[in-house]
């Protein structure tokens, strides 16, 4: 059961993340068109071959999103999917595309995460922004609106801090080990010209001396919000064989979705990644030891720590000594997010989640230049949505 590894990522477009946009806003539909064109050109595939799309929300339409996009692109597709799994959305789109291809439903699927600002309407809508409380919903009837937001339990920082605090109470907390994750990934970012922190090295002391945002999380353990955008092309065997680059075959995946608010987790330290990673490895018929690099969602350092544990690269509770004993940079003995991760590369909205996929594929295509992991053949990738509670694991393989 599962994928046979007959669909591959064959083309990539990724805009350099920027903290402040240096170019004007672009409508989401136009971003889709640009990203699609660039990713297809990268693969050497004609737009007329596209017969599937996976998308997230767009600014121009709250519903009927896929058909709004296909109409704009002038495409007719057999497979149209909207995915709403936060930071796990892009990874979730990858396996959906691969599954559609292996089922024979589609042959070339476009996946895009346009994350550049879009123009504001001349008369802005009144009322508070829907993102006033981050990912927490203030809509009428929303459990978060009634039972969480009034207590200030809002969105990401304080949720991940609650997870980190619980982790510390269970296993002990080693702030230096957590800081090392940010530092090692920054080394990789310093070798990636596309990274927002390409020119800014950091030390463990820098991390520990950065302001405490929400105990025990320091500012330099949190991603930098950016603007950007990314797209990939997923194609079936025949198309992949005639594309320009070494295909990154999608050989395994797992997905697990639990709660939205960490308060209501069955167990805050048992993340959705455990079953998702096991499923991915089993499907691919691969072991942890065979993995050449991991490219895993890293909104916070604690996310990386728990991901390394829950994906099975070390026993649970032993992640802190593990990251002290290993070099996580692209040139280290356990390459983790060789593009710098979102911590070093920047988090351009949902394109931040896509960066783990583009990087995994780029490494297998051997196109990572100064941050190339030698002989990269097998990559383990995660997408993480919400508060460790929406997890997708992927395994990509070169020939």
């Amino acid at each position: 059961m599962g994928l046979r590894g007959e669909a591959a990522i064959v083309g990539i477009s990724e805009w350099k993340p920027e903290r402040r946009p240096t170019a004007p806003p672009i409508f989401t539909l136009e971003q889709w068109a640009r990203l699609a064109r660039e990713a297809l050109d990268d693969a050497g595939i004609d737009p007329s071959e596209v017969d599937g799309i996976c998308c997230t929300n767009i600014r121009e339409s709250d519903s009927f999103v896929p058909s709004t996009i296909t109409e704009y692109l002038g495409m007719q597709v057999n497979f149209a999917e909207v995915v709403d799994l936060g930071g796990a959305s892009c990874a979730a789109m990858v396996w959906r595309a691969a599954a559609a291809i292996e089922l024979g439903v589609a042959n070339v699927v476009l996946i895009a995460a346009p994350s550049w600002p879009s123009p504001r309407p001349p008369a802005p809508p009144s009322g508070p922004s829907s993102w006033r409380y981050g990912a927490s919903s203030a809509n009428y009837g929303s459990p978060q609106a009634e039972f969480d937001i009034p207590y200030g339990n809002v969105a990401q920082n304080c949720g991940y801090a609650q997870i980190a605090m619980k982790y510390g109470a269970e296993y002990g907390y080693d702030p230096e080990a957590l800081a090392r994750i940010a530092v090692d990934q920054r080394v990789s970012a310093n070798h990636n010209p596309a990274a927002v922190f390409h020119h800014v090295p950091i030390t463990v002391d820098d991390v520990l001396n950065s302001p405490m945002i929400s105990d025990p999380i320091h500012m330099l353990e949190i991603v930098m919000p950016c603007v950007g955008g990314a797209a990939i092309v997923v194609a079936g065997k025949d198309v992949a064989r005639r594309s320009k680059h070494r295909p990154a075959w999608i050989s395994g995946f797992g997905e697990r979705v639990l709660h939205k608010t960490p308060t209501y987790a069955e167990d805050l330290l048992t993340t959705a990644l455990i079953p998702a990673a096991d499923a991915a490895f089993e499907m691919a018929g691969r072991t942890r030891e065979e993995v050449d690099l991991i490219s895993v969602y890293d909104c916070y350092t604690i996310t990386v720590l728990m991901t390394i544990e829950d994906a099975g690269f070390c026993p649970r509770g032993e992640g802190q000594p593990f990251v002290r004993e290993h070099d996580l940079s692209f040139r280290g003995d356990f390459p983790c997010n060789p593009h710098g991760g979102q911590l070093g590369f920047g988090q351009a909205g949902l394109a931040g989640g896509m960066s783990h996929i583009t990087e995994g594929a780029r490494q297998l295509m051997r196109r990572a230049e100064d941050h190339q992991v030698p002989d990269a053949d097998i990559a383990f990738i995660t997408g993480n949505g919400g508060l460790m509670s929406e997890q997708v694991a992927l395994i990509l393989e070169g020939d």
Partner: protein
Amino acid sequence: MPERPLPTPIERTQPFWDALRERKVKIQYSPSSGQWVFYPRSHAPLTLADDLEWREISGAGTLYTYTIARRPTAPDFAGDEPQIIAVVELDEGPRLTSTLVNVDESAISVGMRVRPVFEDVPDSETTLLRYEPAP
């Protein structure tokens, strides 16, 4: 000071808020599964039994986890920092979101016993359920 967001109860959840107003904690219970439930729902989680009934509990519990937000968690909470945001595990099992009051930061630890503090929000019908260390 910005206006704090207050809950807008719906018919389903009103008994919880009415109880807080009377200095009581009431949550739902599903007799068929023996399961206590929070937040209030129409059907019991997992079993989807429609036998949920309201029962009064003490509200006492332990601190499951917490964080101290040094920056406001949203613009509406500017001036409230540090916000001690708490997840309380009720003795009956379910967890709820709250904040800790009447406590020194250095005295907070995961697993500590906590008890309810009922806070009437001025100029509103709302009573919030906050927590403090239990002696």
